[in-house]
């Protein structure tokens, strides 16, 4: 049975069902079935990081996971990190620091950084550099990306402090 079958998950807080062939990757399901085209596909074999999305709190390569493997999972894509009218903390910092040029890698980097800072709001520059090494950017030279992520840390620390109170 290689024909389409339903997969149920939560995407950016809303329940979603897609009918996809088993070979469909999570990234393709998000883009083609749900039209969440903010997630980009670069290499499609797990090297470039452009397709990074967050599954149950962990950043993963959307091209290295089958949609079927996300059954019952909570998925967050770049569309879940803010909107044009209300940018998220990372998005604001990326704009301020010119942390993107062509923008192709940006969605993956934002998803990666969001997962990192949600988990480790005190991540230091070395840790940020190590984590972001899994995302290829051929425009910026990374320095503005690192500056933006470092600046956004404060917003994530505040979230954690509020949650603790």
């Amino acid at each position, binding site marked *: *049975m*290689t024909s389409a079958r339903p997969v149920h998950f939560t995407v950016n807080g809303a329940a979603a069902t897609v009918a996809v*062939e*088993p*070979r*469909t*990757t999570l990234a*393709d399901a998000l883009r083609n079935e749900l039209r969440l085209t903010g997630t980009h596909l670069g290499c*499609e*074999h*797990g090297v470039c*990081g452009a397709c*990074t999305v967050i599954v149950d709190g*962990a*950043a*993963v*390569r959307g*091209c*290295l*996971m*089958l949609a*079927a*493997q996300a*059954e019952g999972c909570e998925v967050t894509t770049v569309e879940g990190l803010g909107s044009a009218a209300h940018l998220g903390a990372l998005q604001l910092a990326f704009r301020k620091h010119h942390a993107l040029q062509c923008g192709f890698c940006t969605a993956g980097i934002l998803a*990666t950084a969001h997962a*990192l800072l949600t988990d480790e709001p005190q991540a230091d520059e070395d840790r940020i550099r*190590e*984590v972001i*090494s*899994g995302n290829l950017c051929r425009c910026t030279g990374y320095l503005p990306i690192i500056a933006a992520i470092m600046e956004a840390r404060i917003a994530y620390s505040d979230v954690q402090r509020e949650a603790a109170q």
Partner: protein
Amino acid sequence: MKLPPLDYICAATLSEAIAALAAHGGNAKVIAGGQSLMPMLAFRLAAPTVLVDIGRLPDLKTISISAEGIDFGALVTWRDIERDARLAQAHPLLAAAVAHVAHYQVRNRGTVGGSMAHADPAAEMPGIAVTCDAMLTIVGSNGCRIVCADEFITGGLSTVLEADEIVTSIHLPPWKKARRWAFEEFARRRGDFALAGVAAFYDIDAQGLAFDAHVGVIGVADRPARLPGVEALLNGRRIDADVILQAATAARDAVDPADDIHAEAAYRRDLLGVLLERALARAADIILPEAA
């Protein structure tokens, strides 16, 4: 590079997974994290007609540490290892090696069982398993068998696994507290596959002499391997700069890497020598004189 058409079965139990594998003969492949298999599928290097997902099996996700050693369920991820604070004490060599495995996103899904079953010649986990005499538990239609890591890997991306068999756990013998050890590898980018790597450890007797030396290498042959000649050279010796340089020379002579697009054979051989020098110097806590 979309994946080839295939069927997908998400197994609820280990026996269900094995039955599914057996029913499809060699046409089924086990998937868990998928961090090695999915690129293989994208490139059509593997084209199974069925994937059997063991990612949701209970009981294969634990790390247990006892006097008998450390047992890793096959579904333990690199992130699980990184976050287990006990391992820095319980097996510092493994913890150091796993710090080099892949990038952040891949570390969240990649599993120790998958890494062993994939058997990439440059991968850290198979290297540590071979260096440390790990034992793998394998379950299939004919029951359970235990295979040492050295015999498990039979060549590049090749293992003794039968079509209906699954690696369920990996056992590492207990780590001695005073053991001297180091892991060194070189990759162009941290997280990429190593051009070469070395895992080394030895114990020290009352006279300060090394015994039970283990030296394993990755990325310089079709599979991870120990270097018995180098180990013999270390055993019974005080590990000083002279011994380290002799060991590095012996290591260069012992390996026969192939040329590939990443590095020429001569470069890899030389790199291995340098990495072994660094590893042994770090293990012995000495600083080698700068090369002239």
